[in-house]
């Protein structure tokens, strides 16, 4: 066969499968990867430590070591003030695992392998996020159980309590989308582990999680009061302990939706480029 003949080769025209079939396969792929990610999590002692044991240590630390020195004016005292905050902080920090796992998969060529397979492009990220949702639910449940053991009580009834827990998981998932972007953009497990997530510290500690914002110096209050983690924590506290819900509810919704709207496309772009 000569080169001129080859140049006239006409590629096959292959129609893409119908949208419904693609959707069905996409859901199947997402489910497979969710199971896969959860299995990996269960087999990795470091992940378990970070998502269960460390948060429990935080509860005990703040409840019994720092708590006595932090005056708050909520019914039931500091432990009731602390729990919504620490649930939110834990959910935010659980997103660490998302960034590390994605960077590792990228580095090891697992993501290249997936991208060269006939599976839904969105499945890797969606599978990751659904596994994270399951992981976050476990973490939040453990924290609240430990909270109950050390004196925490919901003050506002079961309905709002459940909504608070759901809100915590949604906050965690939202921050997972940021972490997914960070992990895919930095591409290196070790760098992600050492400095890829420093932004989580000001976001969770310079907030209303552990102390009333009014105890901070004025210039810091301006940030602490208006940043999204505080706004969500204020709403969670209102749900757990009672108080006005509406203002923080819509502010939380706008913030969370905004973060997702920015970082999901960024993460998808990094995933596409990853080769």
């Amino acid at each position, binding site marked *: 066969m000569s080169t001129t003949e080859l140049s006239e080769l006409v590629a096959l025209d292959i129609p893409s499968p119908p949208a419904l079939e693609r959707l069905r396969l996409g859901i199947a792929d997402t489910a497979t990867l969710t199971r896969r990610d959860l299995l990996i999590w269960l087999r990795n002692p470091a992940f378990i430590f970070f998502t269960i044991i460390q948060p429990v240590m935080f509860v005990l630390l703040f409840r019994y070591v720092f708590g006595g020195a932090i005056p708050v004016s909520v019914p039931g005292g500091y432990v009731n003030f602390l729990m919504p905050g620490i649930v939110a902080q834990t959910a935010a920090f659980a997103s660490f695992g998302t960034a590390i796992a994605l960077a590792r998969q990228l580095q*090891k060529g697992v993501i*290249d392998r997936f991208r*060269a397979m*006939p599976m839904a492009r969105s499945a890797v990220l969606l599978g990751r996020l659904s596994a994270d949702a399951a992981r976050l639910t476990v973490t939040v449940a453990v924290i609240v159980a430990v909270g109950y053991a050390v004196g925490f009580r919901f003050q506002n009834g079961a309905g709002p309590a459940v909504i608070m827990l759901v809100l915590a998981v949604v906050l965690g998932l939202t921050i997972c989308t940021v972490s997914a972007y960070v992990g895919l953009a930095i591409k290196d497990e070790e760098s992600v582990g050492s400095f890829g997530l420093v932004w989580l510290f000001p976001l969770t500690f310079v907030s209303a999680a552990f102390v009333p914002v009014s105890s901070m110096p004025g210039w810091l209050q301006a940030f602490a009061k208006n940043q999204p983690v505080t706004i969500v924590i204020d709403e969670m506290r209102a749900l757990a302990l009672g108080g006005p819900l509406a203002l923080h509810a819509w502010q939380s919704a706008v913030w969370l939706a905004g973060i997702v709207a920015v970082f999901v496309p960024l993460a998808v772009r990094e995933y596409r480029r990853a080769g």
Partner: protein
Amino acid sequence: MLAPLGARARDWEGPAIFVEGVHKSFGEVHALSGIDLVVERGRVLGLLGPNGAGKTTAVKILTTLLAPDRGRALVEGRDVVRSPAAVREVIGLAGQATAVQEELTGRENLEIMGRLYHLDRDTRVRRAGELLERFGLVEAADRPTKGYSGGMLRRLDLALSLVSLPSVLFLDEPTTGLDPRSRNGMWQVIRELVSGGTTLLLTTQYLEEADELASEIVVIDHGLVIAAGTARELKSRVGGDVVEFQVVERARLQDATGAVRELSDAEPLVDRETATVTLRVGDRGSHALVETVRRLDALGIHTEGLGMRHPSLDDVFLSLTGHGAEEAQPGASRRRGAERLRAQE
């Protein structure tokens, strides 16, 4: 036993891989500057070149991981830009990294791959079992891969790329970093694989590897194809036999080179690091060999590994590019090749 590979893609009669004028740049770096490749079904193409030659970029374009800037690439008639999903249906890829999840067992890695290829339960369980057996991983099948050796990980990685029984397989440097014994094991596995009719594109920086496995070889350097043909054709380009020896006392390397210079058609090639001298002796092999022994002996120069051999791909590479073939193991594959040929003669 595993069903024959390459059973799919019967809708296409043309070459399994067809690449025409493909360019790819990363900013200022021209990774590929217009390459053409044709691989007929069932053949093994060895894509040979030093680090940074553009081999991996070519594989990434053919496996839809990267889009070419210009040019056309078809895999089993499917255009990598227009129908990437259809390309992914017929290919298997084992990249440079071993893309194995260390927390999962070998069997779990394979079965999850089967799920992602939408195989039904029976098929994916059966296929995982067959692949584990074929790649000698039955004993380790239910242990997390964290504890696998480098050779086992490479074999599992290759097995993962075969779960869908692809008709075109891409292996990017399948043995880089393996010890010689594991490398031989991989070669054995790959040879069996292609005897079943799979089309294989393999990149390597080991000339010996291309020689062992590939039916056709394309040499690329700086993003361009600089030679193509069978190993035999490429070697005949260099022209004739080679006499080679190593000088024991390095101080006498220059004396030795001077003594035999006129026996070589071209300026003798001297590798100072290993004190190896290589002469091009055309078809006067035996005469040149005897003459070399005589002259060195007269000067009392001690040598090691003195011998005549047919040219290796290393020689080909050197004569094509004017620079050494591989940074990874200078001289090593050349010496091994020489020993093997001597043993056969």
